[in-house]
């Protein structure tokens, strides 16, 4: 008996320590490898620009872009704010609209049969082609860009949320029914929490789409915003500014995505199957 215990203990400890060492190594390389690759690419870019004497209109060097960002962060920030706020507004409206439509689809068979095929068909339209129409309908202000952003971003929220709400375990629903639970109780206690992981995966797609929607809107017509700055600078052959605007846009996108991921982490504290 004692022998067997010792045997299993050593048997368990050895591979475990080996595995953890491996995991540490993997954790380190999880950050170092992509960072290293990025640095290598940037270095090669810098080297190529320096050696080939390529004009900065065609390809500015990473160092010069960084220098521009450091010098003119005030201008970039001025343009970043409307883009970020409009993206956030478009995303939030898309989230509300998407979840509302998903709830309608879940609870009304008629709504599901009427809406679902249309939504799928709607999804097949190359929506970017419709962007100019939003300017005609809603004018050149931020409302047209936000509306277009919602238009582009709400669909993944609908699909993900509906999938989540409909995926609820039938046994769980039967238990609720046996306890004389109301539809609202089933929704708040079971359906919605069970759908949350689905909703968050829809939100992560939606946030990137919402930014794309705003940028396209700014490409078409705007007086400010990073999309406007990119088009304006490119037209003036100011590639350095254009590239700097793109870098800032990436940072803004990362920030918004980070907020969604943060919200998911907070929700997971209450609705995760793992222990805290």
């Amino acid at each position: 008996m004692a022998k067997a215990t010792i045997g299993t203990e050593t048997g368990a400890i050895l591979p475990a320590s080996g595995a953890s060492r491996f995991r540490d190594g993997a954790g380190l390389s999880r950050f170092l490898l992509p960072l290293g690759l990025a640095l290598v690419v940037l270095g090669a870019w810098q080297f190529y620009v320096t050696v080939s004497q390529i004009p900065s209109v065609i390809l500015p060097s990473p160092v010069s872009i960084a220098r521009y960002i450091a010098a003119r962060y005030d201008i970039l920030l001025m343009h970043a704010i409307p883009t970020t706020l409009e993206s956030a507004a478009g995303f939030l409206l898309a989230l509300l609209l998407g979840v509302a439509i998903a709830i309608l689809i879940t609870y009304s068979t008629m709504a599901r049969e009427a809406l679902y095929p249309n939504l799928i068909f709607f999804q097949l339209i190359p929506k970017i082609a419709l962007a100019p129409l939003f300017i005609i309908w809603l004018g050149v202000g931020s409302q047209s860009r936000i509306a277009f952003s919602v238009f582009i971003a709400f669909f993944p929220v609908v699909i993900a949320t509906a999938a989540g709400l409909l995926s609820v375990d039938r046994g769980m629903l039967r238990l609720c029914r046996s306890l004389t639970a109301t539809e609202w109780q089933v929704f708040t206690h079971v359906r919605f929490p069970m759908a949350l992981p689905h909703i968050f995966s829809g939100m992560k797609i939606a946030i990137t789409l919402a930014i794309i929607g705003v940028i396209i809107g700014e490409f078409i017509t705007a007086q400010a915003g990073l999309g406007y700055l990119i088009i304006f600078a490119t037209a003036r052959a100011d590639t350095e500014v254009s590239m700097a605007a793109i870098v800032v846009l990436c940072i803004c996108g990362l920030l918004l995505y980070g907020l969604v991921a943060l919200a998911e982490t907070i929700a997971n504290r209450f609705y995760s199957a793992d222990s805290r």
Partner: protein
Amino acid sequence: MLSLAPKADVGPIETALVSVAGVQKTYFTRQAPIQAVASASVDVARGEFVSLLGPSGCGKSTLLMMIAGLERPTAGSIMLAGAPVAAPRRDIGIIFQDATLLPWKSALENVLFPVRILKLPIEAYRERAHELLKMVGLAGFEHKKPGELSGGMRQRVAICRALIHDPEILLMDEPFSALDAITRDQMNVALSEILETYRKTVIFVTHSIREAAFLSDRVVVMGGRPSTIILDKAMPFPRPRRFEIEETPEFTEICRELRLTIEAAHGHGQPASGGTGSGKLAGAGASNIE
């Protein structure tokens, strides 16, 4: 209502708490109507433990769901404490084959789930939830989530959940059939211990002959095609029951009688005279019996 004291003086069993009379259930499918229950009549007295025993597809679960008010009978009547069952009722606790726990809630919170749904005061039931979990041997596991518990532990949580609001009747639909044989034996002993403390009227669906004989006051055998009640037999073993009774000759003899009854209705492995197809089907049904 919240009393945890063992109800020792239950008194003589006299009234039928659950009364099933001439119940029939037919599902109307696109091809042909399927008769799940041809005719079933059974009375269950207050405090009695009755098993519905039969092979898969004999309609025993359907009958249980009708008693729970989750399905409506096609014909016949089901009375519960003198009132017809038309919809699910609050004074019933149900345990399904799967534990059906909320994966993000702790064992304790899952036990308290009916309290929340029934809008009862949570704080008044928290202590009871702790005691129930302790009773089923889950003290110290109150804050574990279902993913961290074994199948048997999860089903114990489900039993506590069914008992939390102190229902009059416990309906159990093959609650241990997803568990391994050893855990299942342990669960049977645990369940009879729980019921010694919290006396309930229990209707228990199973396809295990030994399980039915061990747990029940009466075993009602369902079967035949179309399905009816083919035997209603009292289990004469004294309570409290311990696992040793399964080794007695009386127990073996009763299990034999139950098995023979089911085999007589379904034909054990013998091809029916008409064709081998239906014979194989009947054999498969009977071999489902353990």
